[in-house]
Structures are given as C-alpha cells and as structure tokens.
C-alpha cells in the first residue's frame, strides 16, 4: 500500500492535516446544509458550548499524556461551582471564584499525590475521588444556589467583540498549555513520563513531581470550568457534571491521544473538542430527535476515528 506522506520540517504531519480536513469538511457540510449554521447566534453558541468540554479536555490531555486518567473532573466542576456560588454571598465575587478554582487545584493535587506517591492506579483513585467530591458538593449544599449579585454573571456573559470572554479564556488555556507541553521542561517531561517513566526517572527528572503537576493542572481546568459554567448559568447545582469526563476523554482520543500515554497534542485535543461540539450542534440544527441523536452521535464518533485510523501507519507491521 502506498501512502502519501506530508512533511513539514522533517515531521510527518499527514495525520494532523487529514484531521484538519475532517474538521473543515464537517463545517462545510454544516454551512451548506443548514441555513442556521452560519448565523451569528449559532456561531456564538458554538463558541460558548465548547468552553466546558474544551477546558476539561485540556486538563484531561495532560493527565492522559502521563498515561493516567482523571475521572473526577465532572465532580470537581460541580464542587467548584457550588462553592463559588455559595461564597458569592459573603465574599467579593473574584475571590469566591478564586476559592472555587483553588478547590479544583486542591483535589487535583490530591489525586496526583495518591497516584504518584503511592503508585495507585489512576483509574481507581480518580473514580474514588469522583464519588467523594460529588458527595462533598452535596454536603456543601443539597439545593441549587443562585447568587443574588448580578456581577456573578459577568464572567459567563461578557463579550470581547464578537467572541465570548469565556471562549477566549479557554483558547488561552489551550495556547499557554500547548506551549507548556511543547516548549517547557515540565511539559516535555510529562509527555516523556507517559512514554517511559523509568527512563525519565533515570534522567534525573522528578517523576512524582510531574505526575502531581499533571493532575493539578487537570484539577485547575476542572475548577475553572466549574466556575465558568456557574457564572454562565447563573445558578449552581451540586448534581451538575455527571459524565463530563467521558466527553473530555473522547475529545483527547479523537484528537489522536493514546490512553497509554506519551502521545497526544493540545492541537489534537482541541480538534477533538471541535468535532464533538460540531456533531452536537449539527444534530440539533437538523432537528434530530434526542434519542436518535444519541444513536447517531455514537455512530459518528466511530466513523470519525475510523477515518482517522486509515491514516495511521499500521503499528507493528
């Protein structure tokens, strides 16, 4: 089988290119078949709706690169949101939000500590913290909290020109995060740990430290997502965020990340987020009924990874 390979500065970018083509094709199909797609309102919706999945996906990517997984992000979203909303009554709003995010950071580093220090399986550690953190969110408040101060809504509704502020926040996370992963010793080490932790350890790099960092970043992203979501909705529910982790993981994998670690990129994960959000948006615009939406969404995801896979060189052959 002859395969076409596209190279930029010696790097094989064929897969990335194919993926970009896929996203562009999705957009083109959307634009030409639904007149609502290219409207200002719909585009703004798209920009807003990708924020939560986007933030969670970046944090998840960092953890996945180490070869781990973070199932607790949905619960952290709920916890950060409800705490922020609860504190907004007594604290200045930016401070309340900072506390919410700090909660995410704290839970993230706890996850990281358990994984790194005690060498526990990330799946089970974060599954346990999913349960515990969700419980804590309910313990904090069983009922939804809606802060009275209208300033609480600012973050979630401000626009920078045609672009929602929260989208810019998310893009900034991907931008800074992408540079972090590609250009800093810590970022590269995280990727390398996912490839072979022992090699990294022997190179004198603190593996545990970087593992904790990875989970902390995921916790930070989830906390930020929780705060943003609450500010967007204007009301915090302790029950929000169930199964959010699944979309985040799916975005990473669609974007080419390997769940065994060491492979994946911020660009790819962002592409994965776009694909998921576009699928949802399209199914809605076409007015597909909800249950059929679910049926189709699953099938489309399989189709997408099938398309992608045909571009991947056969592994051990």
């Amino acid at each position: 089988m002859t395969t076409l390979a596209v190279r930029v500065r010696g790097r094989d970018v064929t897969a990335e290119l194919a993926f970009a083509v896929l996203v562009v094709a999705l957009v083109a199909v959307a634009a030409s078949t639904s007149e609502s797609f290219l409207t200002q309102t719909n585009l703004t919706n798209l920009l807003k709706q990708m924020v939560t999945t986007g933030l969670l996906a970046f944090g998840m990517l960092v953890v996945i690169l180490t070869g781990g997984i973070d199932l607790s992000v949905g619960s952290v979203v709920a916890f950060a949101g409800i705490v922020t909303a609860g504190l907004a009554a007594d604290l200045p709003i930016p401070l309340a939000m900072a506390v919410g995010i700090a909660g995410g950071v704290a839970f993230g580093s706890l996850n990281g500590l358990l994984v790194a220090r005690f060498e526990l399986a990330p799946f089970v550690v974060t599954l346990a913290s999913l349960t515990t953190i969700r419980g804590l969110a309910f313990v904090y408040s069983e009922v939804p909290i809606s802060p009275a101060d209208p300033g609480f809504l600012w973050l979630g509704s401000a626009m920078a020109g045609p672009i929602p502020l929260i989208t810019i926040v998310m893009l900034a996370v991907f931008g800074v995060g992408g540079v972090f992963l590609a250009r800093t010793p810590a970022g590269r080490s995280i990727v390398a740990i996912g490839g072979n932790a022992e090699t990294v350890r022997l190179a004198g790099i603190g593996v545990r430290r970087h593992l904790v960092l990875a989970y902390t970043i995921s916790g930070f992203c989830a906390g930020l997502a929780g705060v943003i979501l609450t500010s967007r909705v204007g009301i915090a529910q302790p029950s929000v965020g169930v199964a959010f982790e699944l979309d985040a993981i799916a975005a990473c994998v669609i974007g080419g990340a390997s769940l065994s670690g060491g492979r994946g990129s911020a660009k790819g994960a962002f592409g994965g987020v776009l694909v998921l959000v576009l699928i949802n948006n399209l199914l809605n615009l076409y007015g597909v009924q909800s249950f059929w939406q679910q049926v189709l969404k699953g099938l489309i995801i399989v189709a997408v990874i099938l398309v992608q896979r045909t571009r991947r060189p056969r592994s051990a052959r």
Partner: protein
Amino acid sequence: DTSDSYTVGVANFLLSGPYFSGMDAAIAAQAKTKGNVKTISTDAGGDAAKLAANVEDLLSKNVDAIIISGGPLESAPAALNAIKAAGKPVVLVDRKFAVGEYTSWIGPDNEAIGKQDGEYLTKTLTNGGKVAIIKGGPADNSIGLARTNGLKSVLSGNSKFTLVEAPDFGNWGSDGGLTVMEGLLAKHADLVAVFCENDAMCLGAQRAIASAGKSGQIVLAGVDGQAEALKAILDGTNYVVTGLNSPNVIGKLALDRTVEVLGGAKVEKDTVVPSPQITKDNAAQYLNT
C-alpha cells in the same frame, strides 16, 4: 409506652435533586412535630434494584410502615411485593406506581400543571406566536411527557400558536436548560414563550434569553415552584408562571397519612395535591413555604 410510637421507613429512589431531598426533609420534619414518630431514610442512588434492597433492609429493621419516594421510577413491583409479604402499609409520594398494590398515594397531577401553564400563556399572549418546549429527558420521562402533554392539549388546539420542541434534552438541570435554549434561539428568532418541564431548566433558559438580549420578547413558564423561580416571578422578570409542585406539602401530608393509617383510620386511596398556579400576583405567598 411503645404502642403508639412508630418507626417509618422512607425509601428514596434518588436523593440528589432538590425536589427529592426536599421531600425527604419534609417527611422527617413532620415526623419531628409528632413526637412519637421516628423515620429512617434510605437512598437508592437511582438504582431500582437497590431500592428493592433498601426496602428489604427497612423491613428487616422492623419498621411499622414505609413511604416510597419513587422519583422517576414507574413502578417497583419487587419492593411492593416484599412490603405486602411483610404485611406493612406503604404510602407513595409524588410518583404513583403503574402496577403493584399500595395503601395510599399522595402526589401532584402533572398533566394539570402543564395545562395550567398553557392556559396562562393563552390568556396573556393574546397575539399568539411560537412557543418552545424544553423537555427534561431520560431521567424522568413519563412525568415530563405528562406535563408537556398538558401544555399541548391547550396550545395545539389554538391556531394562533405554533409549538416547537427542542430536539435535545435539558436533563432537568439549569445548565442543560441553558444549552438547549441557546440552540433554540439560533434556529428560531421569533419565539414568544418557552415552556420547560421543570423550573431548573427554565432558570437556565432564562439566562440564555437574557444573553441573547431577548428578555423583552420571550416569556417563560415552568413547573415545580423552585425558590429561585418564585423569586424571578416575584421580581417581575420574563419568568411569568409556574405551577406549584411542593415537596414540602406532599411530604407533610404523606407523613400525616402514614400515621393515620397506623392509627387504624380508613383513608382516601389517592390524593391529588392541588398545584396552584403561581404568578407575580401570588408568588410572595409561596416564597417561604
């Protein structure tokens, strides 16, 4: 003297929702006021099999009666059979099971609430227009269907109104309501009203409408009487109506009913708790109940 002190088991299908945890709390609070009634509460976390197991647990702790808050569950034959076998009375709250024997049921008429909202919209939107429906979805489908059907029974017969159903679900939460509303706004610029199957979704939808700058054009109608919704109605926002479906009222009545049964009284089998329509005029009176 133990002869007139009772232990009542409360089997919740799912506590993690303000409506259901409110119900549980109301039952416990009412028991406290009695002095001689103790309650033991369990949560099945949304697992029907666990509900049955919890009921069996309660029976093995020898409770005198059981109240089942079945949430979205359509029926629980295994649980009801076990209670029947133990010869204990069972009072259902909110959800009336389609099959199985029970002693008494106390709950709302969901279709009536939907109808009520529809009538209010007909009355206030004299020019008619396009009304969107946001459904909750899987977690509690048949209650949602009843509410939506109530609304439809009023509006679909009126030629001035057109109905659009959002294709996706709001999943009974504010964040879902927000996202679904955003989708609706992108496709339908000319909405005049939105009906949501519960208040939580309407609260999210209200945010989406505000962000789109359409608060002056679109009014909202919900169900439940959630505190934040009442406040929005009272404040004179575009949230104009909801129908009270108060867990406090139902929970209180249920505990009373259970004690009556245990005292040997003959009771009404099914009791529909009225769901008064709440608008700006009367919202204040419900805000603190």
